[in-house]
C-alpha cells in the first residue's frame, strides 16, 4: 500500500466515489452547525455588535484561499516530479475554488469594513495582498485555458505556480513594508497568550472544519469531472480515427 496507488485514475475514481457522499454530508453538517451556532447562539461583541459574526465566513474562507494555493503548489510539484495526471488535474480543479474563497474573503471583509472602519476598502497590507493573490489565481487559470495541449498546459502552469508562490510571498512582505495596517492582527495563533474568546472560538473552529471539508469535497468533485472530460476526449479521438 502506498499513497501513489491513488495516482491511478481508476483507483482514484473508485475511492473518491466512495468518499464523496461522506465528505459532502460531513461538510454540510459542519457548515450548518457552525454557522447556526455562530450566528444565533453567540453573544454580540461589546464593541462591534453583531457585525462580529461575519468572522464565521471571513476567517475560514481567507484561510482556505491561502491553503488552496499551497495545495496547488504541492500538486504541481508532484506532477513535475512523478508525472501523475490526477495530480495536475487536481491542481487545475482547485484554482477556481481558491479564487472563489479569495473573493468571499474580500467581499465579506468589505461588508464588515464599511460599518466598522467606515470604508469598503483600504490599502491595508492584508487586503492588498489578498487582491494580489486573486490576480495570481486569475493568471494561473488563464494560462490553463490558453493552452490546448493538456501536458504542455500542466507543465507550464506548474512552473508558474512555483514561481508565483515565491513572488506571492515576496509581495506579502513588500506590501507590509509599503503601508501600515488597519486590519487586526492574528488572534487564532496556537502559541499566543491572548486570542479570540472561547465563545467565538469553538463555533469558528467548527466553521473552519466545514470549510476545509467543503474544499476537499469540491476539489474531488471537480477532479472527477476533469478526469471524465479527459476520458471523453480520448473516446472521441478514438472514434474519429476509426
Amino acid at each position, binding site marked *: 500500500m502506498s499513497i501513489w496507488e491513488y495516482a491511478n485514475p481508476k483507483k482514484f475514481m473508485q475511492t473518491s466515489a466512495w468518499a464523496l457522499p461522506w465528505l459532502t454530508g460531513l461538510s454540510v453538517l459542519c457548515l450548518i452547525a457552525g454557522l447556526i451556532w455562530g450566528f444565533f447562539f453567540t453573544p454580540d461583541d461589546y464593541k462591534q455588535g453583531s457585525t462580529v459574526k461575519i468572522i464565521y465566513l471571513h476567517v475560514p474562507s481567507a484561510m482556505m484561499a491561502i491553503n488552496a494555493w499551497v495545495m496547488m503548489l504541492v500538486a504541481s510539484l508532484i506532477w513535475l516530479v512523478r508525472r501523475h495526471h490526477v495530480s495536475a488535474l487536481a491542481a487545475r480543479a482547485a484554482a477556481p475554488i481558491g479564487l472563489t474563497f479569495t473573493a468571499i474573503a474580500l467581499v465579506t471583509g468589505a461588508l464588515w469594513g464599511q460599518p466598522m472602519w467606515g470604508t469598503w476598502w483600504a490599502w491595508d497590507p492584508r487586503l492588498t495582498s489578498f487582491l494580489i493573490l486573486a*490576480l495570481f489565481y486569475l493568471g494561473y487559470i488563464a494560462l490553463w485555458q*490558453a493552452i490546448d495541449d493538456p501536458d*504542455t498546459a500542466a507543465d507550464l502552469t506548474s*512552473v*508558474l505556480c512555483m514561481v508565483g508562490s515565491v*513572488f506571492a510571498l*515576496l509581495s506579502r512582505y513588500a506590501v507590509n*513594508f*509599503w503601508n501600515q495596517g488597519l486590519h487586526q492582527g492574528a488572534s487564532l495563533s496556537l502559541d499566543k497568550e491572548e486570542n479570540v474568546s472561547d465563545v467565538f472560538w469553538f463555533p469558528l473552529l467548527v466553521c473552519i472544519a466545514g470549510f476545509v471539508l467543503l474544499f476537499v469535497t469540491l476539489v474531488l468533485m471537480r477532479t472527477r469531472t476533469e478526469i471524465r472530460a479527459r476520458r471523453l476526449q480520448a473516446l472521441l479521438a478514438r472514434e474519429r480515427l476509426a
Partner: protein
Amino acid sequence: MIALLIRDLRLAFRAGGGFGLGLAFFLLVAVLVPLGVGPEGATLAKIAPGILWVGALLACLLSLDRIFALDFEDGSLDLLATSPIPLEGVVAIKALAHWVVTGLALTLVAPVLAVLMNLPVDGYLWLVVSLAAGTPALSVIGAFGAALTVGVKRGGLLLSLLVLPLYVPTLIFGAEVVKRGALGLQVGTPLLLLAGITAGSLALLPFAAAAAIRVNLR
C-alpha cells in the same frame, strides 16, 4: 553568446524592432498624467515617483512578447535550443538585450521626464539609481512570462496578466526608493531589497524560463 547579444540588439534597433516605442510610451505617460490630474506642481511632485515607476513598468511590458515570439515563429529558437550554449544562457542574454533596449534607455531618459513630473531635485539621483537597480528584474521576470506564453497565439494580453502580479514587489520597492529619496530620507533598506529582488530573479528565473521554453518546443 556575445554574437547572440549583438544579433538581438541589431534586430531591436533596426526598423520595426520596437526600440523607441517603449521610450515614446514612457514619454506619453509622463505627458498624459499631468493632463489628467491637473498641472498643480505639489500634486505632481507627490505622485511623480509612483507614476514614473508605473510608466517604466508598462513601457517594459510593451516589448516583452518580442523576446521569444519572433524567434519561435521562424524557427531560430529551435536552433538556439540545440546550440552549444545552454538554454538558460540564451534566456539570460535575451533578457539582457531586452534590458539594454528598454530598461537602460528608460533609466537614461527618466530624469528628463522627472522634470515634466516636477519631481523634487533630491529625487533625481535616486530615480536613476532605483531604475538601474530594478529594471533588470523587470526584464528577466518578463522573459520568464514570455517563455511561458511563447506557444500561445496572440498571447499579449495573457502575458500582461501573468507578468504584472510578478512585478508587484519590484514596483513597491522601486517607487519607495524614489519617494524616500525625494523627501530626503534614508533609502538604504528599500534599495537593498530592490537589488536583492533583482539579484535573485537574475540568478533563478533563467532556469524557470528555460524549462518553460523546453516544454513549449516539445
